[in-house]
């Protein structure tokens, strides 16, 4: 084979072609989600267990202090609701990453990757699809929480949407970056132990940062540098119609960084999934 034959034909793609691709990937993800009812239920049960059981026991723990964005005293379950919303997205992001590994093992990924559209676009579509699924889960959780008398101001349900999209993208991109390094499905337990749990617990999801500072300054800094903390705070402020600029900057910055990392990692010429010299180059 000549090297000329290997060079893809350089031509631009029309918007319609891009949309067809986006549509295909989002639909596949949506169908996969809808067909796995257990996954939807388990995605809801996890935060609800935290809300109904864990928060109920810790009602008096928070102590009396009004911190922004709250304007009055709140119960613990009201405090952890935004943290649980972010937790849904964290699990969803990791679940998408798991499905990437699965796709690669089963060979489905080849179908995706042979698409002539640019790699970054394919990965972005996948990311958007995962984020859309996480939004469904979060709003279902908010609905149940509302019946439990954990309600944000009515406008908060709209203002939280952009924050959820951004945090969903960040956590999805992180999942994608991690998935590029996982060779086998069995290794996913490691993701649980090394990514999900530390990220969730060392954040402001369960306790406000001032509380953590009181007990351990070192842990406070760990929490402060955890992007998940900022995702939680971004959601928390947006739910009450307010903007936390620092959180926005951190979440936005991390989204871009993780995304670039994932695109590089999935680039066959230099990525982490490269399993040896690519054939046909000599």
């Amino acid at each position, binding site marked *: 084979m000549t090297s000329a034959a290997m060079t893809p034909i350089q031509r631009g793609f029309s918007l319609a072609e891009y949309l067809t691709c986006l549509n295909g990937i989002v639909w596949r993800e949506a169908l996969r989600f809808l067909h796995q009812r257990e996954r939807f239920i388990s995605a809801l049960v996890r935060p609800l267990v935290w809300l109904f059981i864990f928060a109920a026991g810790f*009602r008096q723990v928070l102590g*009396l202090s*009004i911190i922004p964005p709250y304007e*009055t*005293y*709140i*119960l613990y379950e009201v405090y952890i609701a935004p943290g649980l919303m972010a937790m849904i997205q964290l699990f969803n992001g990791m679940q998408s990453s798991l499905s990437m590994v699965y796709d690669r093992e089963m060979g489905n990924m080849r179908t995706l990757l042979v698409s002539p559209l640019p790699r970054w676009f394919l990965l972005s579509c996948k990311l958007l699809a995962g984020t859309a699924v996480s939004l469904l889960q979060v709003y279902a959780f908010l609905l149940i929480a509302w019946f439990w008398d954990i309600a944000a*101001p*009515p*406008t908060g349900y709209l203002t939280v949407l952009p924050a959820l999209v951004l945090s969903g993208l960040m956590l999805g991109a992180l999942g994608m970056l991690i998935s590029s390094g996982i060779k086998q499905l069995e290794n996913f337990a490691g993701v649980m132990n090394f990514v999900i749990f530390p990220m969730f617990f060392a954040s402001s999801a369960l306790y406000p940062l001032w509380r953590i500072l009181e007990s351990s300054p070192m842990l406070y800094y760990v929490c402060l540098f955890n992007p998940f903390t900022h995702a939680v705070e971004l959601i928390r402020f947006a739910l009450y119609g307010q903007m936390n600029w620092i959180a926005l900057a951190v979440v936005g910055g991390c989204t871009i960084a993780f995304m670039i990392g994932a695109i590089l990692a999935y680039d066959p010429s230099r990525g982490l999934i490269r399993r040896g010299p690519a054939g046909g180059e000599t």
Partner: protein
Amino acid sequence: MQVELKEDGLRIWRYCLFSGMAVWLAAATPASAFIAYVSNEKSNTVSVIDTNSWTVTKTIKVGQRPRGIEFTRDGKFVFVAVGDDDSIQVIDVAKQEVVDSLPSGPDPELFALDADGKILYVANENDNTVTIIDVEKRARLGEIQVGVEPEGMAISPDGKILINTSETTNMAHFIDTTTREIVANVLVDARPRYAEFKRDNSEVWVSSEIGGTVSVIDPAKREVTKKISFEIPGLRSEAIQPVGIGMTKDGKTAFVALGPANRVAVVDAVSHKVTKYLLVGQRVWHMAFTPDEKYLLTTNGVSNDVSVIDVAAQKVIKTIQVGELPWGMTIAQP
């Protein structure tokens, strides 16, 4: 098919956007402004709160240990009982300063103004008496001997009966306002703090701090017909100490401050059932409605703040820092 779906999606988005904007506009429209005066027992001041911005606009220096506080009927002055100075001070609302004082007995705590706003009945905690003051003449008209440590004061809607509760005697004394004599004593639970009539004169409610109950008394029969008790999961019953009571004008809903339980109970005033507990600041004591009954403000003594309750939504919407140990509250249109 897909086009239809897209159109539907657009329609939903538009609907969401418009309804969101409508809610936002409704929320942004300011309610008519009232001013709330809050007596701060420990810092010897009165905080003035603007109900539009929910901020403290002025702090007025008053005498020592201010507690009971009430607007005059014309809304031009505020009376505040300064217990350690043994008098009732008069704040000019326009000038926002103390301009005069009325003679009470020793250690005045709570007081009630009659319907015309001409006569003031003051409970003097240390003297076991109720002092009657002519507001215009600034003169004492007489005294009524009551039980030990008198506190709660309420006048019946027809103006004929004055209720005084005595903390140590555990009684609600029914006083005839014409003869100025006690006509009945009703025994209630330990340490009665506050009394409140329904506007139709069908019931008078008396809160018992130590007893942990609110006694509902029939003013015609002058006997307790019902006792309301409170239960909050995770709290010891001793922490539930009912004090201030707020009753809506239609007599359908009542709010009871539960002191160190840091909660206000919402009570269906017809069935006498507790329907909800609202979390407010520490040691919630007294409360007052805005004249339009949209909001109810509570004083939280230990956390030094005032919580704002949206009455229709039955939700706490805000908490505002005031002086030390906020105790009483009165609200009017300036």
